């Protein structure tokens, strides 16, 4: 019976729905599916920059990547970077959103002030942080130099420090976005629940963990996913402006390494193999996250 009902949605035009979604499907196929399949194919070949010669190399691009310490270092940097953005970034955003949700004077001002960072483009954010941390002229090395003595030109020549600075910058850039969503989530939690918990004698800490946090889980799940995508793909501009992947490849996260291999070193085969690996990693992570989190998430009203 259900089938009959659906067919009658467009009486006399059985093909109309397909015709209507065709443009969207066509765009997806032309701009996403075909290039993706092409890069899967390319990952099994070695090609000269100008395409004068193409050689089938089987899995060589992959085996070399997994054997190369640069690739492993890059993968590790990506993991550390995205873990920082996701864990520290989301925790901090939630804390700030919670504070913003209190009834205080000037609430609107604080909300806008904390959200506007999202309006910046990655390039602008990168430029701000690069200027702040510029080894010879930036305000941060200057203050650190004054506080701890000595002139620290090597601030950005230290790999771990550079990765930390880039991670903080990326987190800061995403703060506004996260806060908006957490704030919306918090405002959707019915006050009766919180009040009921208080009446039952739960302290603010207990109320937060037992009531607020579980009820926020759909928002948290969504933000985890978005932040993962952000940390993997959208920080390119930030890295490009702040460190160029350096020093010594310390901030050469996968998406930046991929760009360099493809567009700087003109090595399409290696870059395609890298993009396939990133695709698999992201897909697996997304599936696990969605599967696990949707089960745990509480969508009840």
């Amino acid at each position: 019976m259900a089938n009959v009902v659906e067919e009658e949605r467009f009486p006399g035009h059985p093909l109309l729905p397909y015709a209507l979604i065709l443009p969207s499907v066509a765009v997806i196929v032309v701009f996403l599916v075909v290039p993706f399949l092409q890069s899967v194919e390319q990952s099994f070949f070695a090609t000269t920059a100008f395409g004068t010669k193409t050689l089938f190399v089987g899995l060589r691009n992959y085996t070399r990547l997994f054997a190369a310490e640069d690739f492993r270092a890059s993968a590790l940097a990506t993991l550390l970077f995205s873990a920082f953005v996701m864990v520290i970034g989301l925790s901090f955003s939630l804390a700030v959103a919670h504070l913003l949700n209190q009834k205080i004077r000037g609430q609107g001002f604080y909300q806008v002030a904390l959200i506007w960072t999202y309006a910046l483009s990655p390039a602008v954010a990168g430029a701000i942080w690069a200027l702040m941390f510029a080894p010879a002229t930036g305000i941060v090395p200057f203050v650190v130099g004054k506080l701890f003595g000595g002139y620290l030109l090597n601030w950005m020549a230290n790999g771990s420090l550079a990765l930390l600075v880039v991670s903080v910058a990326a987190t800061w850039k995403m703060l506004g976005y996260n806060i908006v969503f957490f704030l919306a989530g918090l405002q959707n939690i019915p006050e009766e629940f919180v009040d009921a918990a208080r009446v039952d004698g739960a302290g603010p800490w207990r109320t937060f963990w037992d009531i607020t946090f579980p009820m926020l889980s759909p928002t948290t799940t969504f933000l985890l996913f978005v932040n993962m995508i952000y940390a993997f793909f959208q920080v390119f501009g930030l890295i490009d402006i702040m460190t160029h992947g350096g020093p010594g490849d310390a901030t050469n996260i996968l998406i930046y390494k991929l760009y360099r291999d493809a567009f700087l070193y003109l090595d399409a085969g290696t870059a395609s193999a890298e993009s396939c690996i990133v695709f698999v990693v992201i897909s697996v992570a997304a599936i696990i996250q969605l599967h696990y989190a949707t089960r745990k998430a509480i969508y009840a009203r």
Partner: protein
Amino acid sequence: MKVRQWLLIGLVWTLGACLAPQSVLAAGKVEITWWHAMSGNNGKVVDGIVKDFNAAHPGIELKALYTGNYPETMTKYITAYRAKTAPNLVQAYEVGTQQMLSSGAIVPVYQIPGMVGEKWDWAQYVIPITHYYSTAGNLWSMPFNSSTAMLYYNKDLFAKAGLDPNKPPTTWEELEADGKKLLQTGAVKHVLSFGWPGWVLEQSFATHNQLFANHENGRSGLATKVLFNGAFGNMVLNTWTRLAKEGIFIYGGPEYSANSAFESGQIAMLIQSTSSLKGIEKGSQFKVGTTFLPRFEGYPRGNSVIGGASLWVTKGQSKEQLRAVWAFLKYLAGTNIAVDWHKGTGYFPAVNSAVQALLAEGWFTQDQNYLTAFLQVLSGRRDTAAATGVRMGPFVQIRELERTAIEKSVSGQLSPKAALDEAARKADQLLADFAQMNH
């Protein structure tokens, strides 16, 4: 409904009519395109040259387009070439030279006069520059913007440390002694930094006539092995690492990131491209001195290497287009054009007549610093491949490997030898891959 449709059609036609005159105007003119990577001040100078060229050549419409920085321009050129929409002329950076030579996409410039039925005097170009872009004595790309590296120093800080501001160090030994003095007197906390660290390593090899890669620096055949981890390379990196331990050398990052430390007086010496001279003189509040790259004593004399970019002509153009491109390349060799190019950008003029004109008008007596680079490059030897500079297919990557080796060594992460060996192992793999694909 009908009215609206007609309106729409009318609009489309009007738009089409507005666009049409352009192509009508262009008819009767030979249109050629040039993709370049000159932005900012240099881009403005390029635009001026193009404007004047078009005004002087009514039959030609040269369209110059900024297509991003060097790597971006290279990528775009390759993509366009594969889609058969390449520009007639493209600017490619020096590290892309072997890629362009192996591409099969270009006409060597030395063949063009013959193809358009003309003769051309190649001896009018400055020799170390033409040698860099020549293969078997023939010029493959047209020299355009060339620079080299030199030592910049802060005369005020030298005076403050009790050193003679007009006597910069000429050897690494003197540099170390001066550096110690600068540190002891408290004039600075660190003394020396590099721009383009990998390039400075290559410069050290060339100025001491040492081969950087096999097969005559990749000039008698494709390079298959790098030589920078030999005795000479180890000696160089040992010296730099020792200077870093003494606090004299401080790593300042890639490309131009160390410039600000020098300009703000936090370090007293900087090895950087000559193309930074204008910016450094403008950005510094002290007297800037320049001198030749410091030498290691007891090693033979070579020459400093050319950096920058050159112009490549795409293969498969019509005779008219080729003739128009050639007219432009000839135009660039004009004395006045080359003089203005040098004054406007700080790059070398590519023709001898321009160097003479600059000398004659006393340009260098106004600012001796502009002379340093010339004297250095013109006084070096020009008969060996080692002094001319290395040529490698995957040069972009290998230069990054050199930089990483320097970073790891001066920061104490690896010994100089281990850092160089690691870089050489990776570089040899890249060279083998390139040779396999381009034999």
